[in-house]
């Protein structure tokens, strides 16, 4: 299979536009303000992002999007990763959008995707119930048929952007397996509680469902959708990998810059091999991470290859970013351990993102299954 990695004009344009907007409008000072704010989100900025077309980048033109694919979307994620951009973009524009796009029927897509593309609504996906329950063992959240609709009961303690979302797509067990149900955030019986998190740039909520009633039309695709859910999580993994690449690259740049300008023993510390070689290792790991992430987003339409490429990227990029973010603190020494320095923003993002959809070990299990080991 032939895959091209050379950046096209469109990709370059998306990258330069995104970098400029993020640096001008959501620099690290803004990140810190949002990180410590109550909602963790600036609705005005969200509107600006939507007006730039980011929330609809990978949504089809027939649904009000730009009609691009995962490769283009991942460039945005990579650029946001560079600046640990806060907010529900990953939950809404990646996870929830992919869930609707892969599992929804035409009516559901026509009703939801245009509102996601325009930024009118924010959505999220509520799946996991156990701390290490990434392989979706039988879900304790259930959907019970009730007339023409469904009644949902259960708990989802780790829902990304749960309190920011207007719509929550809930994965629940029912007769035929797992179904994904579109639940409005104000549905009676739905209890959403914001949870303090390791990485406050990406919020989570604890969600309880007590007899939440939804219409029959709330079930995405009208039935069982385990395969679509797994594909959605694979797309999430690939996009998260791109975000991890952006963070890794920024950490490498911060470390190199500091190593050139910080003097000890009368020399820039970057002239000592212990520091220089650490930076060279960061470079190597970043490049390897890029290769796997760029590959994954380019093969998303080839199910067999994507089954290999997504967990490959997930495991390689998670390990790379965790290591690089940790070493970035070490290269910076004491200043790197302060609240004032930005290194901790990256460390927290790195660790949390490596756990969201399955840690590197879990991704390697998926990879092993895909390659027959």
């Amino acid at each position, binding site marked *: 299979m032939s895959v091209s990695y050379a950046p096209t004009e469109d990709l370059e344009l998306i990258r330069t536009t995104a970098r400029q907007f993020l640096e001008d409008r959501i620099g690290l000072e803004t990140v810190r303000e949002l990180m410590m704010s109550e909602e963790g989100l600036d609705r005005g900025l969200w509107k600006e992002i939507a007006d730039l077309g980011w929330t609809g980048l990978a949504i089809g033109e027939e649904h009000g999007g730009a009609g691009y694919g995962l490769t283009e979307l991942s460039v945005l994620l990579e650029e946001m990763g560079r600046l640990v951009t806060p907010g529900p973009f990953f939950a809404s524009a990646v996870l929830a959008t992919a869930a609707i796009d892969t599992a929804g029927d035409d009516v559901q897509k026509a009703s939801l995707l245009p509102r996601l593309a325009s930024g009118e609504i924010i959505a999220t996906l509520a799946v996991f119930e156990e701390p290490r329950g990434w392989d979706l063992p039988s879900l304790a959240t259930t959907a019970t048929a009730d007339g023409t609709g469904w009644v949902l009961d259960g708990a989802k303690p780790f829902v990304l952007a749960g309190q920011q979302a207007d719509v929550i797509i809930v994965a629940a067990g029912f007769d035929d397996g797992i179904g994904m149900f579109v639940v409005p955030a104000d549905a009676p019986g739905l209890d959403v509680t914001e949870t303090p998190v390791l990485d406050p740039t990406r919020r989570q909520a604890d969600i309880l469902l007590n007899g939440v009633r939804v219409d029959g039309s709330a079930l995405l695709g009208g039935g069982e959708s385990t395969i679509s859910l797994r594909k959605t999580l694979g797309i999430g993994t690939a996009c998260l990998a791109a975000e991890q690449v952006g963070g890794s690259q920024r950490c490498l740049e911060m470390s190199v810059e500091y190593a050139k300008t910080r003097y000890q023993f009368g020399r820039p510390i970057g*002239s000592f091999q212990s520091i220089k070689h650490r930076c060279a290792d960061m470079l190597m790991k970043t490049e390897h991470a890029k290769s796997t992430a760029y590959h994954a987003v380019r093969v998303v339409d080839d199910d067999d290859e994507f089954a290999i490429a997504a967990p490959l990227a997930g495991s390689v990029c998670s390990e790379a970013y965790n290591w690089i973010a940790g070493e970035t603190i070490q290269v910076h020494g004491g200043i790197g351990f302060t609240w004032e320095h930005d290194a901790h923003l990256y460390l927290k993002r790195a660790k949390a993102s490596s756990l969201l959809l399955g840690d590197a070990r879990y991704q390697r299990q998926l990879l092993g299954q895909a390659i027959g080991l």
Partner: protein
Amino acid sequence: MTDTDYRRVDDVVDELFARHPPQSTEPEEFWGAQYDLGLAWVWHEEGFGGLGLSRKDQPHINWRIEEAGGSTENRLSNLLGIAMGAGVLTTHGTDAQKQRWLRPMFTNQEIWCQMFSEPGAGSDLAGLSMRAEPDGDEWVVNGQKVWTTLAHVSKWGMLVTRTDPESPKHRGLTYFVVDMEANGIDVRPLYQITGEAEFSEVFFNDVRIPDENRIDSVGSGWRVSLTTLMNERVAIGGNTVPRGSGRIAKAVDVWKRSGSADPLLRDELIHLWAEVEAARLTSARANELASAGVPGPEGSIGKLAWADLNKKITSFTLDVMGLEGTLYPGGYQLTRPTSFDTSMPQKAFLRTRANSIEGGTSEIMMNILGERVLGLPGEPRVDKELPWKDVPRG
């Protein structure tokens, strides 16, 4: 390559095949004809094995010869000459030198070796000690080289020597081509940790080299050495292996046959597989970007990554074998190897220990990445301006 270049190359290849059918012509004769038609190193100037085209046109020619049942085996059996020596001669040699050496090099009649490293000069190549002193129209050479591939079968050796001990180390070097059959040269097998002698030590005792075999001017040996090493990198880089092949395939094979149900071993295997695949995709990406004219750091990290992976994979393979990994079927034979086969995991484990040393240690590769790619400052160099004779050695 442009369409016109393609047509031109194909026309010449057709002419070669018409006059010397690849399947029925003796390789030596075929290679001679290939050289004479300018298809040996197609980017060389006409008359020296080339047509003045681009280096990128060569793979197409090689592919056509192989497809027609001809041999390109000379490129491997005389690798150091064809991949590196030829580049040195065209960049720094005189027309007489090119005339004398290029054709028999390409026809494989004269094998070449490269003598750079010394017991006292490894990573710090420019600090080497082998002495060459002028004597009339000749130079008299004394000293020792080490880790020389193919020395025992070579006719010619590329040699870098110290001609001015009073100058700082980079400035006092001179490059020669030496006749390996000359009096005073003693080639001894250098047995490595596998017990085999893939390499040689070469001792020089009052060896006389005619001045006409000097490459470029006296004192420019460092520059010529850099050309040699640059050609080495071009020769090594550029090919991407298939997914899951090579050493990781062997590890997978051994793991499957072991029937192991140990989840830790399995995770380690998949972990290695993933790292290999990441390195492989990085090579593929580097190749594509390089051919699109976007050179990046991806190429430089390949050697570093593969050295480390080869060592980890072959060590892991013995772990999977358990007590079988303690055996060494066939035992250690102190011999010259007849092939470079390392399909036996125990031998592969031993041989790959050198991957992070040979052709530039991993430490030196990381310095290159740190300084040339990331722009980090170099180490203070205590020997840079000092006359070579005053630099401490040991």
